């Protein structure tokens, strides 16, 4: 099965929850509405002829250009993309899912956007979502243990955001 067939299948089952796709990309991806991601994931994992039982990677890409000169030239609006790379062990095929989120919840800088967790579908997501929360600043609603994983627990900010600024000082250690 290839990208087109997955898309048809998902559109038939979930309808409006499938909000876009790019089948010409190197790794064809399908865009899912944030609220349905866990449901779609569970469907892809349990359906006997799909069986996407392995979540290879979960990551977040921040689309934001801090430089105002360059920002005028970019073609996209600032947003975050949560990217799910799935792999089916029995059928040896891969699939990419994407969820588009605003950079800040309700456009209030500092309040993190939310997406439902998929850690109940794939347990790999447990640590990966913690990492995404830690480094990229996305909150995963319903995650059992959403704490920072790589940075210290009292770290401020989310380093992989494009507008992140390194704190001047951390517990008396000069950073810049």
């Amino acid at each position, binding site marked *: 099965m290839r990208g087109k067939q997955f898309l048809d299948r998902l559109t038939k089952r979930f309808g409006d929850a499938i909000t876009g796709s790019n089948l010409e*990309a*190197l*790794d064809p991806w399908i865009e899912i509405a944030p609220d349905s991601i866990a449901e779609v994931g569970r469907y892809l994992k349990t359906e006997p002829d799909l069986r996407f*039982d392995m979540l290879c990677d979960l*990551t977040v890409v921040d689309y934001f250009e801090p430089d105002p000169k360059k920002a005028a030239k*970019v073609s996209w609006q600032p947003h975050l993309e949560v990217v799910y790379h799935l792999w089916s062990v029995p059928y040896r095929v891969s699939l990419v899912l994407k969820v588009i989120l605003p950079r800040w919840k309700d456009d209030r800088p500092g309040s993190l956007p939310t997406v439902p967790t998929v850690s109940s579908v794939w*347990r*790999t997501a447990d640590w990966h979502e913690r990492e995404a929360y830690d480094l990229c600043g996305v909150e995963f609603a319903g995650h059992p243990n959403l704490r920072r994983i790589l*940075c*210290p627990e009292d770290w401020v900010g989310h380093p992989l955001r494009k507008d992140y600024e390194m704190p001047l000082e951390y517990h008396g250690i000069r950073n810049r």
Partner: protein
Amino acid sequence: MSADLDDPRIIEFDVRTDEMLVNMGPQHPSTHGVLRLVLRTDGEIVSETTPHIGYLHRSAEKIGENLTPRQWIPYTDRMDYLAAMNMNLGWSLTIEKLMKLELPEKAKHLRVIIAEMNRIASHLVGMGAYGLDLGTFSPFLYAFREREKILDLFEEACGARLTYSYLTVGGATADLPKGWLQKCEQFLDQFLPIIDEYHTLLTTNAIFVRRTAGIGVLSPEMAIDYGCTGPVLRGSGVDQDLRRDGEECYTEMYDGYAFEVIVQKNGHYPKDHNYPAVPSSAVLGDCWHRFYVRMLEVMQSIDLVRQAIDRYSVAAGSWGEPVKLTEKLPKGEAYLETECPRGQMGFYVVSDGTSIPWRARARSSSFCNLSVAHELCQGCLIADVPAIVGSLDIVMGEIDR
């Protein structure tokens, strides 16, 4: 009950154990670097294991957003520093996938030689260090004696012994020096009989078998659910090796090579190697099987290197010139996983059309392999914790990035 109290054989009847938190690491030698485990114990029994990671976090992904792909190669070295060649290869292939770059035959064979030699070196450390975890020192010395020779070969090829930055986007930074292949073959000839020594030292050693067989059993379903890959996944009996099952742009490197995936099928491992039998106490998915898969992969890699040397010496074309340091990347994104010694290492690159990636992401295999540790340590003895964590063969540089 009172009858029991009078029984002189029961001397510990009244001894109570308290629940206790034991901190293991981050400086504990058997935690392989800077891993901190907090164990909740009741007497000798571990009821909960909480890994704390991040002590080696260097924000490599953020650095990757500020460097061109070839400049980032040295940072990939420092992820899995025991298999740096495989890290270089993974990142290079991802960029080549994005650029749709086709490599000459000779470059592919060169990469197979180097990647498989590094796999041998990495598994040797894995084996030696696992012996250390279980309290035996000598296998470590034997393993490092042979690994040293591989490092000497690498030093001759690229000048470095640990962080090579040798394989790069477009091929390799240099061709193999004259006479290198002969030295490599000499090493393999001398190395092959030594593996039997390792088997007597560890694989079939009665103490080793008692310490590992039936300990930390990982079911195939759980392994897949937690995203475990590499020897950890195959040790649980899941037939997956990206050198055979991966994406075209990676598997084409191994096109035409004869090799069988090391996994137990119908109760048997592949038959083409001379290896000791599985002890009766071992259960598929336990520490012993994970170790054993690594040992068999060493033999498999020797075989692959020999085949690659034959092909490399007759292949036409160049060894692959590296691309320009500031080569522009096409707009788009690519994700590729490769089979590294510790599992499937994935790299994800997003490009906006400039020479510097918009996002560089490394998906770590050890990261996923370690996340299953708390399940395996549930209800085991404290002394088994190093045995279980050691059998996952983690490298902290890769977990923390």
